[in-house]
């Protein structure tokens, strides 16, 4: 992985007073990639972004962009485009003036300025709205202007600070797709900060999970989703069930009084781990299936009771109890509707397709 044209952050430390905010954070963003910093509030992700942008000095460590050490460079000399959480559009300027600001600061002549503003307005699909004031735009439109303003200076790096959090759900999905398209079209190296795991997984080539100022795990979205390094990452990336079980000889699992022989992925996970005795299984809701539990219990299933079936449109969350442990199982609604009726208290069979040993 070469990052000579991208961003390198090495050994960053930062404290506010006696409180450490970042501890020895190191990461590399190769040129053209889209990385997200994912973490709960207070994890230090925004501080890291501000250090990269040059708004806050780091206590120790080094920031390198395109081969140049910019650790002590003033923000105006870094050539980094920043999109802020609340957009920070200049309220006394029109959309065009906002976008042209960075070009004016670079001494670019008026005709070229107008041309580039037009081009970037087209890129973010805001053609014809250049004369408006930010106050007369919707949240989604302001977001696009902020993005255009950051992109028009052809930055070597684009930083996005929770860019979608101020938008309502429907607009957020729309802008999210736009963001992915625009990043792909411009090929700009991008780092986005977010606390929304769905956003991070959807947008990024690589996700960095931060907690309490330290990197907990870094990797491709599917990789860290399926193989979380620890319980924190597992829980933060999405809902997860914890099932206490005992691994026995012959690849069998005992939960309470029931013993089952898992099939498929879980069997190879168990064989690979080579552990015997008590374990905790981390199982995502979509890694299990559930069927009505009448007749003889199959060898690859656990028996339990239905607590509730919660209809959520395309998916149904089925809550069951297995040997005193509550599990949430996510199913596609046509599957559930076809195999119903489902009444609370009825017996069910639960099959585990995939899990991680914690």
């Amino acid at each position, binding site marked *: 992985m070469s990052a000579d044209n991208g961003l390198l952050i090495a050994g960053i430390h930062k404290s506010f007073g006696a409180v450490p905010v970042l501890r020895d954070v190191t990461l590399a963003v190769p040129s053209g990639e889209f990385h997200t910093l994912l973490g709960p509030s207070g994890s230090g992700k925004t501080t890291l972004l501000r250090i990269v*942008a*040059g*708004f806050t000095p780091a206590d120790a460590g080094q920031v390198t962009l395109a081969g140049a050490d910019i650790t002590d460079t*003033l*923000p*105006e*000399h*870094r*050539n*980094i*485009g*920043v999109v*802020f*959480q*609340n957009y*920070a*559009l*200049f*309220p*006394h300027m029109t959309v065009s003036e906002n976008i042209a*600001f*960075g070009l004016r*600061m*670079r001494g670019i002549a008026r005709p070229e300025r107008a041309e580039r503003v037009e081009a970037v307005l087209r890129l973010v699909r805001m053609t014809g709205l250049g004369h408006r004031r930010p106050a007369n735009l919707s949240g989604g439109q302001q977001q696009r202007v902020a993005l255009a*303003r*950051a992109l028009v*200076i052809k930055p070597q790096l684009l930083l996005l600070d929770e860019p979608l959090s101020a938008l309502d759900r429907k607009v957020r999905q729309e802008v999210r797709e736009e963001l992915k398209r625009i990043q792909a079209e411009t090929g700009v190296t991008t780092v986005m900060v977010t606390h929304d795991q769905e956003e991070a997984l959807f947008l990024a080539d690589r996700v960095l999970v931060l907690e309490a100022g330290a990197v907990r795990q870094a990797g491709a979205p599917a990789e860290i989703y399926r193989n979380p390094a620890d319980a924190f990452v597992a829980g933060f990336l999405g809902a997860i069930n914890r099932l206490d079980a005992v691994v026995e000889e012959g690849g069998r699992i005992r939960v309470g009084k029931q013993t089952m022989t898992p099939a498929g992925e879980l069997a190879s996970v168990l064989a690979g781990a080579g552990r015997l005795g008590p374990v905790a299984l981390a199982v995502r809701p979509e890694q299990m299936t559930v069927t009505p539990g009448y007749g003889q219990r199959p060898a690859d299933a656990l028996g339990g009771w239905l607590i509730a079936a919660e209809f959520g449109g395309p998916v149904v969350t089925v809550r069951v109890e297995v040997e005193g442990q509550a599990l949430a199982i996510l199913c596609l609604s046509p599957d559930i509707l076809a195999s119903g009726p489902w009444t609370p208290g009825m017996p069910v069979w639960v099959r585990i397709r995939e899990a991680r040993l914690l």
Partner: protein
Amino acid sequence: MRKASRRRPLREAEAISPAMMVLGLSLVILFVPLVIIILLSFNTSPYGTLPFQGTLKWYAALFTDSGLLGPTWLSLQLSCLVAVSAAVLGTLAAIWLDRRASRIWGTLFRVALLSAITVPWLILGLAMLLVMNAIGIGRSLFAIYLGLLATTLPYVVFIVAARLHTLDPDLDHAARSLGAGAITTFLRISVPLIIPSILSGTLISFMVSFNNFLIQYFLAPFGVQTLPLKIYTLIRVGYLPDLNALGTLIVGVTCIVIAVLHRLGLRHAGLPGGSTL
């Protein structure tokens, strides 16, 4: 829901009506004397007696031999100087207060400024006289200038600092990341956004220093008469309606200035006569 929300404003209006009456009464007390002065400035009788006979002779007298023009001119010059100084220094102080001051120094500074507003001008004027004498400036025009500046500065600082406080610090960050240096960012981003507040503070400073009789009374050297001091002398010896003419002109000019500022869109800047007052 809809029914309730339609009825609420009505009930609020009813609840307000005694307050509205008090407000109306205050406005009457405020405006009736103004109207009387304006009317009397056009009346022939020097003693304010009726019947009303229209004339402009008091305006003519004002500009020929009233002795009022000199003090008015002095007051205007002095107040302009004070207002501009207060605007510049007050804005700088507000920036320091909002961006740079530590918690302790910021609080001390605020308390000091607040005391300049809350301590009665009578006491403030006396204290200033003592200080001016002690440091050798004594009663002089410069002493008046300093005294008025000290009394008007807090208005500018508080108005501008309040506005600065509402500005998103990310506006500065955005400008910096787009390539603007610290000074350019201040001039292109911060100043345009706080200019209405600076103007508003300047206007208030002008009016406070133009009107401030007590500070001027304590600090004026013998023989120097600002307008408030001149008026004070006149009402002790008896005055002619040319003073009414001057009052009418001042009211007129004030109204025009506020109307112009309103037209300039400074309605929301905390301006006297703006929507916030």
